């Protein structure tokens, strides 16, 4: 078992024939991801990486039965692409593109929610179920199959965390990079319960960072719903205070969203919080050996 995606997930790629789309789709196929086609307007009917290309997502879904889309379109077209996927009946859109305008994501996410489509990202490494299905840009070889679920705002800290877990002799069920943009799709609040429900996941690594209050919301949820051990790291304990001119944003998001505040909230609900990402592997070993 795993969460969100597995070896049977049928995946299409939006922005299939572009440079990034091509490079990463190829890597995903090599990893074993069931990529059944892709979408690039005006290239419909062609074949790319051995798979059919369609002009629209709706054509692609009808022809292939795809339920997941990996989105690589340029930033200015991300909102459009997400809304198209939502209306075409895609169930999960994984948005890799970095630099999508925030306004576009507001509209696109609201539209996705209305159509019952889950989104991951934007500006994220994607999602990987170890040794089954990689939808994103992460180096697949570091994710060995195992019993630890991982969720992270940061791409490279996802790799760092997964690598340490595997070096300690454990492995990963599914790892989800949720992205660090102001507006993101699935977050801790939705994904932690999925790991709780997944019988193969025995422990969870949660990696957050300064800004916003998603980690605080996660702490509340952990207290109420999560019984599996959670190891957390919050990046940015030593980051300088924001240099932003305006201070209005900080008021809305509550108190400043500092690392210290988030770490304390998580510790208070029984999460094992580490002060350096170098200690994630050891902490997982500790919680799992205690459990055994």
């Amino acid at each position, binding site marked *: 078992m795993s969460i969100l995606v597995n070896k049977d997930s049928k995946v299409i790629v939006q922005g299939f024939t572009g440079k990034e789309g091509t490079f990463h789709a190829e890597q995903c196929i090599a990893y074993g991801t069931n990529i059944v086609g892709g979408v690039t307007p005006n290239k419909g009917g062609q074949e790319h990486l051995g798979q059919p290309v369609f002009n629209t997502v709706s054509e692609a879904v009808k022809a292939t039965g795809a339920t997941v889309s990996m989105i690589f379109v340029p*930033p*200015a077209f991300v909102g459009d692409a997400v809304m198209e996927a939502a209306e075409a009946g895609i169930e999960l859109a994984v948005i890799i593109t*970095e*630099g*999508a*305008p*925030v*306004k576009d994501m*507001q*509209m696109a*996410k*609201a539209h996705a929610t209305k159509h019952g489509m889950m989104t991951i990202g934007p500006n994220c*490494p994607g999602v990987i179920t170890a040794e089954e299905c990689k939808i994103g*840009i*992460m*180096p697949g070889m*570091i994710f060995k199959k195992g019993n630890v679920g991982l969720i*992270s*705002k*940061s*791409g*490279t*800290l996802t*790799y*760092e965390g997964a*690598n*340490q877990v595997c070096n300690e002799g454990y492995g990963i069920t599914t790892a989800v990079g949720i992205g*660090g943009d*102001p*507006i993101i799709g699935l977050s801790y609040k939705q994904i932690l319960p999925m790991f709780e429900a997944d019988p193969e996941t025995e422990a969870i690594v949660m*990696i957050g*960072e*300064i800004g*916003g*209050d998603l980690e605080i919301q996660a702490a509340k949820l952990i207290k109420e719903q999560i019984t599996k051990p959670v190891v957390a*790291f919050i*990046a*940015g*304990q*030593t*980051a*300088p205070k924001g240099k*932003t*001119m*305006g*201070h*209005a*944003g*900080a*008021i*809305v*998001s509550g108190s400043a969203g500092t*690392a210290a505040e988030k770490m304390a909230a998580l510790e208070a609900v029984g999460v094992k919080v580490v*002060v*350096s*990402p*170098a*200690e994630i592997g050891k902490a997982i070993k500790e919680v799992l050996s205690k459990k055994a």
Partner: protein
Amino acid sequence: MNVHEYQAKQIFAKYGVPTPKGIMAESVDAAVEAAKELGGPIWVVKAQIHAGGRGLGGGVKLAKSLEEVRELSDEILGMTLVTHQTGPEGKLVQKLYIEDGADIKDEFYLSVVLDRKLEMPLIMASTEGGMNIEDVAENTPEKIITVPVDPAIGFQGFHGRELAFGLGITDKAEQKNIISFAQKLFKLYMENDAEMIEINPLVRTGSGEFLALDGKMGFDNSALGRQPEIAAMRDLSEEDADEVEAAKYGLSYVALDGEIGCMVNGAGLAMGTMDTINHMGGTPANFLDVGGSANAETVAKGFEIILKNPNVKAIFVNIFGGIVRCDRIANGIIEATKITDVNVPVIVRLDGTNAAEAAEILKGANIANLIVGDDLGDGAAKAVEAAAKA
């Protein structure tokens, strides 16, 4: 990206958001000319810098004659203005805004920001205008009214009524004025991809009009490509020169006051590396994310920028390659040692995509000063040790 008050007011004017009349001036003579053109009888001389708290810092002053405009302009232009938002080093005033004095009956606060929790724009208002809004939120949160506006439906009549009644505005003509003001402000927020607009104070005049006495705007950097007029308002002299230089090469750099230079891929790992160094008793000299498209040239540039800082006693290169290929980073390090005189120990930890090839490349290059870190913890420990010895 942030803009100056005078630029924010240009945008306000375009959308019919009322502001006092004003003219930007870059010299004392131009300031006096501007005052003449505005006509008086009173003027406000305002320093234009990208920071709040200008009034308290002595950067906003009232003039009652053209002579006073000249005196005050001469005093403010070229001064280093220190406010609670500039840091102790302050900011050099290079531009003035000369503005008509306004007939102020009372002061309000009004802003539009993105509410990350609701995932939509939020209009915030308060009767406590002219105050530090963070203090108002802390001490009297009931005096802040919040009205979220779903962009899918836009600004509706009820949004306006919530705002007007919330602010205790009972006169019907005044209600109409404040609602129209907020509606236009919301429209310009959406159409210009603004991140935030803050008007503090928003004033009610003796005749029941509302005027934006101040104006701050920040924009979504990701949307500047489709907002050429906004992008053209960027004032590079308000930004850190090293950060601007780094950004040209796709590097994200922030100077700090420690001793260990850091070069990392990914913002999260970069912060995590700083945290680890700190935890081990060292101090990071900077935040530097080489980004996803790092190559030999950008890595070499990164070294150059880090080494400009005389406090740097060691450099920790910490890369976990995903899209970034470790062999390219290794070549960049070699390149950097050829171009720049790297006279401090360099601790290198390369993991992930093509890490084995990278290790071979570095071994073959035989660089003095180069120390290999086995993993994040080991690399950080060696960097802290090297900096302590230097």
